[in-house]
């Protein structure tokens, strides 16, 4: 017989046992190799040497880290800086660095590395990517070995966000050239080798500062340029994950395979039908508005993207902060589109005609473009399709603004500022927007800044600068046993820190 006390002890012991068993069952298993397919081989492996997004996908937070980083939800969290004092209104930011951190080459991480990094980053002649992100930095100094003080010329709402970008990763002081092909960082994985044309190998960095992380022993990013070959390799068990570039058709295929798992999330990519606001016919806002009314975004997403993707109405993605849903700002209304076109002087006798330039390397943007042209045809608009390859698109459309209409995905996060540049290829020249953007970026109060950000989105929609079609879906496919994969892509990153084999 048990006494009451014995019973109590027994129940407690049982509870402990259950907790232990349950806990173990849910514990992330250590070890193993993960093979991840990558669509294109980047030119270098340092995100501060080239803006190729494949670099950030492989390196960001896996191998290379900055003072702060973006997490899966798009929040800015500590990385090499443990904490910081500063606010959007501040001109002085103080970063307290994490102590005891070592680079993969054994060197200790100190304030000197940070000072070197950002002095280089803000120098436009240094070859560092996007020096504009760091333009407002007036000075940077090491107060002691683990404290860095950055002084700004003027308040910058995006300062901390820019420090979380892939461009802002920090390597050992003075290491620039070697960093391009043999990156050394402080992340959970150490770079092992880059076999040209084949892939990139990483292995677990035992000296990583977050205890217990990462779970995987080895990672192999394999370059597989053909999406169909990627699916075949996944099904054959030659790779474990297709981390990006999964087509909607293949996504459906993955959904039906019980060995595989489909991840559907958000990206920061706005698929944008760009219109040249400085040239006929799109220098007339009535024509630009007519285009908005002539297109049914939901139907496009259903028809071309098989339902994957979210309609948007301005240049911001639903996953980003201070987002306003303006996808319904212009209703789908062909009659209204016709009326607006008539008002602008176009009709049956004088139909609206223009060239619609599509970029060859992006099949889904191209198909969306073709579908949009068909919808425009229904309201009497004749869009002549023209396909150009990438380098031509970049020099003719993007740099020269020598085009009428085009379609492309804008994948940079938090990039509404491009509309404040009148020579950007949309050629949108609005003092009102520039004033409003200045109010946003220089605003000391985050709440007011957020309101300005919403106003910016509304202003773009009102002016119908472009036709924003949708936010690209994040589609990834992996073996069922792969756990801990990022659901969303708030920044390009195939983040492996917490990925493990659940078997």
């Amino acid at each position, binding site marked *: 017989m048990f006494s009451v006390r014995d019973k109590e002890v027994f129940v407690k012991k049982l509870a402990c046992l259950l907790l232990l068993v349950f806990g173990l069952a849910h514990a992330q298993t250590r070890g193993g190799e993960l093979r991840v397919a990558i669509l294109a081989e980047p*030119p270098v492996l340092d995100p501060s040497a080239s803006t190729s997004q494949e670099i950030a996908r492989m390196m960001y937070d896996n191998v290379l880290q900055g003072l702060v980083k973006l997490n899966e939800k798009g929040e800015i969290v500590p990385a090499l800086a443990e904490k910081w004092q500063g606010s959007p209104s501040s001109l002085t930011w103080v970063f307290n660095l994490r102590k005891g951190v070592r680079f993969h080459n054994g060197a200790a991480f100190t304030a000197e590395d940070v000072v070197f990094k950002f002095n280089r980053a803000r120098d436009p002649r240094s*070859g560092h990517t996007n020096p504009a992100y760091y333009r407002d930095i007036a000075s940077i100094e090491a107060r002691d070995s683990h404290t860095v003080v950055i002084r700004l010329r003027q308040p910058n709402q995006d300062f901390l966000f820019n420090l979380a970008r892939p461009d802002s990763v920090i390597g050992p002081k003075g290491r620039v050239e070697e960093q391009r092909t043999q990156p050394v960082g402080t992340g959970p994985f150490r770079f092992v080798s880059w076999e040209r*044309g084949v892939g990139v190998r990483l292995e677990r960095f035992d000296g990583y500062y977050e205890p217990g992380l990462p779970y995987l022993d080895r990672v192999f990013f394999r370059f597989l340029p053909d999406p169909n*070959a990627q699916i075949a390799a996944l099904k054959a068990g*030659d790779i474990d994950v297709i981390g990006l570039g999964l087509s909607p058709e293949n996504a459906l295929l993955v959904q039906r395979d019980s060995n595989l798992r489909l991840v559907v999330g958000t990206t920061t990519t706005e698929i944008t039908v760009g219109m040249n606001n400085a040239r006929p016919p799109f220098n007339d806002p009535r024509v630009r508005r007519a285009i908005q009314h002539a297109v049914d975004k939901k139907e496009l997403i259903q028809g071309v993207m098989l339902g994957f993707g979210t309609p948007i109405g301005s240049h911001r993605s639903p996953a980003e902060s201070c987002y306003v849903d303006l996808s319904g700002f212009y209703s789908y209304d062909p009659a209204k589109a016709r009326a607006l076109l008539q008002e602008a002087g176009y009709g049956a006798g004088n139909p609206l005609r223009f060239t619609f330039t599509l970029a060859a390397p992006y099949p889904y943007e191209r198909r969306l473009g073709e579908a949009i042209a068909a919808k425009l045809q229904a309201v009497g608009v004749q869009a002549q399709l023209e396909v150009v390859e990438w380098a031509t698109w970049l020099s003719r459309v993007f740099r020269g603004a020598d085009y009428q209409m085009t379609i492309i995905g804008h994948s940079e996060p938090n990039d509404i500022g491009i509309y404040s540049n009148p020579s950007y290829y949309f050629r949108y020249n609005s003092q009102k927007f520039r004033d409003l953007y200045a109010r946003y970026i220089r605003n000391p109060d985050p709440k007011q800044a957020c309101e300005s950000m919403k106003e910016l989105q509304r202003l773009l929609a009102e002016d119908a600068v472009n036709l924003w079609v949708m936010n690209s879906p994040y589609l990834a496919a992996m073996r069922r046993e792969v756990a801990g994969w990022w659901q969303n892509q708030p920044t390009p990153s195939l983040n492996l820190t917490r990925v493990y084999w659940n078997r």
Partner: protein
Amino acid sequence: MWGYLLGRLLQALFTLWLAATLAFLALLLVPGDPVQTILGLEASPEAENALREQLGLNQTPPVRYIHWLVQVAQGNLGNSIRYEQPVTELIGARLSVTLPLAFLSLLLATAVALPLGVLAAKQAGRTLDLLLTGLALLGLVLPSFWVGLLLIYLFAVHLGLLPSGGFPGWSSLKVALFHLLLPVVTVALGRAALLTRMIRGSLLEVLAQDYIRTARAKGLSERWVVYKHAMRNAALPIVTVLGLEFAQLLTATVVVETVFGLPGLGTLVLTALEARDYPLIQGIVLVLAAFIVALNLVTDFLYVLLDPRVSYA
């Protein structure tokens, strides 16, 4: 003989120079800028100018052209803009995949096409001939990306016998050949189809000639007539085609390389063009031209061996 050789060598050098110059001029006409393709959409003009200067692209085309020619004359093809590696190193690495792929594919194709072509020629007009030429036509029209995917699904996904793609390098001959098997079969299929038809046609033409009738009239066995008398003459155009095919395969395998994820020369050409990687494109054109010139020389000398009537005295 020596005078002839010297002449051929000078001719080869002229051809190479012409090919390189044409490649340089063609690239001036195409729109696009390597700096933009490297720095991407959001790069600042300052960064672009700095990179342009660093790459020497701020100089005028004639200066760049002469600079490049001088470099090439010293045996240096320069550095790739996109890969930031010596062009010779890049091409060498890719050739270590593409050369075996092209060679093995042609070998397999010839091994298959020779008996089939001869069989078809001997049975000309009959059911077997129709069947073989029909199959060859099918082999020609099937696109290689489709055949490749089909083979991957069959042998890698369903049967699990072979890898679905990729290339682990030559550290293990067995593993490397294992990875090349499906790509070789895919490339060989189209080539074998073409060669079968070539061999059949060439052999039929020869078999209709007088000396064959004489040989047959002498009472020689049909096998002796076909393989000893007819094949020797039928081989000349086939050798020519094989030489050209080989040169073509060095870049024409791009589709198969993409499907199987092989780091070959074809994909390198494509990437180089997309990135407007001038030194790399020019380097590849030069190397390919050198291959074709060399193969031509070899075929010319092979003619002497095959046909004693040809001489370069």
